[in-house]
């Protein structure tokens, strides 16, 4: 069970209500993140008044490139959507790792196993998904258009923290708002090392203004997660999930 401490789910959850309009290509940034074993999932906030004129493709493309999931939601349902999405990311990351191993071992994945034996593996994944440590960075769009939604967005993050704290496994949570004080920057609202009790106060630094530098934010989150993981694991290196599952 000692290994348990080393396999960690690393994920970025991007919450945005529009297209990236400053800086680099967010899809490419998500691709780079996945290469470093960090999945990027996205939530697109739909305006209640404008009847989803067209689904923002960028949200789908970022999640595809980042190996994560995407979801659309009204701001009122954001709490539940973040909750479901973060859970889905964890289970599917484990499931992918298991499938990769099964393919190497028996040449087939879970779906090719008969339901009875598959059940056993799934039960294990289910249990494990509540125990595996998570390192999660929430990227919150704080551009001008979020002004009317920022209150709900803040509550949704607090709500996510509630859910996370009841898990059996360790949880490291950081919240980054974008843009930051300058145009193409972002700002750490809650750092991995900050205490959870400071979260609420920290989130009051969310000040919606300016554009949407999504790529910059993703790159920054990757850096933040890597630094944090490096610090936590000293020189031991980080065991990948595949190594854990096979062991």
């Amino acid at each position: 069970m000692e290994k348990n401490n080393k396999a960690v789910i690393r994920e970025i959850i991007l919450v945005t209500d529009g297209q990236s309009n400053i800086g680099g290509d967010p899809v490419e940034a998500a691709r780079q993140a996945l290469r470093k074993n960090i999945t990027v999932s996205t939530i697109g906030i739909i305006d209640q008044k404008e009847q989803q004129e067209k689904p923002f493709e960028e949200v789908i493309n970022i999640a595809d490139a980042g190996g994560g999931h995407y979801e659309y939601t009204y701001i009122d349902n954001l709490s539940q959507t973040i909750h479901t999405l973060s859970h889905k990311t964890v289970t599917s990351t484990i499931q992918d790792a298991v499938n990769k191993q099964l393919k190497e071992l028996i040449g087939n994945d879970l779906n090719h196993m008969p339901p009875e034996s598959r059940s056993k593996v799934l039960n294990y994944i289910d249990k494990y998904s509540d125990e595996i440590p998570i390192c999660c960075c929430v990227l919150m769009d704080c551009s001008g258009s979020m002004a009317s939604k920022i209150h709900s967005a803040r509550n949704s993050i607090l709500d996510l923290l509630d859910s996370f704290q009841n898990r059996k496994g360790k949880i490291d949570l950081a919240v980054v708002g974008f843009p930051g004080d300058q145009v193409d920057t972002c700002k750490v609202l809650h750092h991995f090392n900050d205490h959870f009790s400071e979260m609420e106060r920290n989130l009051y630094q969310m000040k919606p203004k300016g554009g949407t530098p999504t790529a910059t934010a993703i790159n920054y989150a990757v850096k933040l997660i890597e630094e944090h993981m490096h610090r936590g694991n000293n020189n031991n290196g980080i065991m990948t999930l595949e190594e854990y599952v096979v062991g």
Partner: protein
Amino acid sequence: MHEALCHPGKEIIGKWKKKQYQVLKKLGMGGTAEVFLVESKLDNKLYAMKISQDSLSLNREYQLLKKFTGIAFVVNVYEMDDFHEKGNVYHYLLLDYIQGEDLKSYTEKKKLKMLTILGIILILLRGLETFHETGYILGDLKLENIMFDQVKRQIKLIDLGGVVEKGGTVKEYTPAYDRAAWRCGMRKAEESYDLFTLTMVLVRLILGEQINPTRQKKEDIIEKIKKTNGNETLTSLIVDMIKSQKYNRKQFAKKINELYNIEKLSLIKQKEIKTDKLVNKIFKFSFVLLILTSLLLLIINK
């Protein structure tokens, strides 16, 4: 996702058990799954087929349904299998088809009597007992998941997707009934979490309207209950349960049971009063008739 996939008339053959079904119509959808009414080619019986690509949550539900099978309160599950369609794998559960309506659509058409509401809460409390005593939490209890079986005249729970072991995290929930969303406690799998959701079901049934924690505060709900519901004992019970889940399941059940009996008694009394009036009327009527007849007789005799 199954719109084109599961049109009425489509045949589904299970990959592993090779059983054949014909899709008759769509019954509903929720979360990651959709439910269809199907007819088995083997026994010509009707079943509800729950289809999803999320094998993890479907498997979890299958295990739980099997565990609680035989309890009148929970829908029966018969098999779990897969089918392939256009390169995708779909998993399904075969469940009892319940002829009836879920409580949500039912209450949208009809306002329930207080006696019925309390009766439903008592049945649900009884159902919770089974889960709690085997170490589980129901989690995602809501009107949509409670069916009125019109044939067997029973209440059935049709979705166990939210069930988790005690001590874990509540994974699936609905904000209107969720303790954390109302800021009344943690989203933790403990008995009091279920008692809170049940209290919100009770609130929802009494108010007969939607409740929404993003637009309302718990104080608004308490205010509304005070206005709508004349029964002070019930109101203060609800307030205690919302604020702090003051009572455990047994105490809560006992209190609801007392309220149920009082309500029943008062209904009987009302009926008695009504019968009294009726007897009175009949008596008066016959009396008048008697006088009239005697008068008539008198006149004829003259």
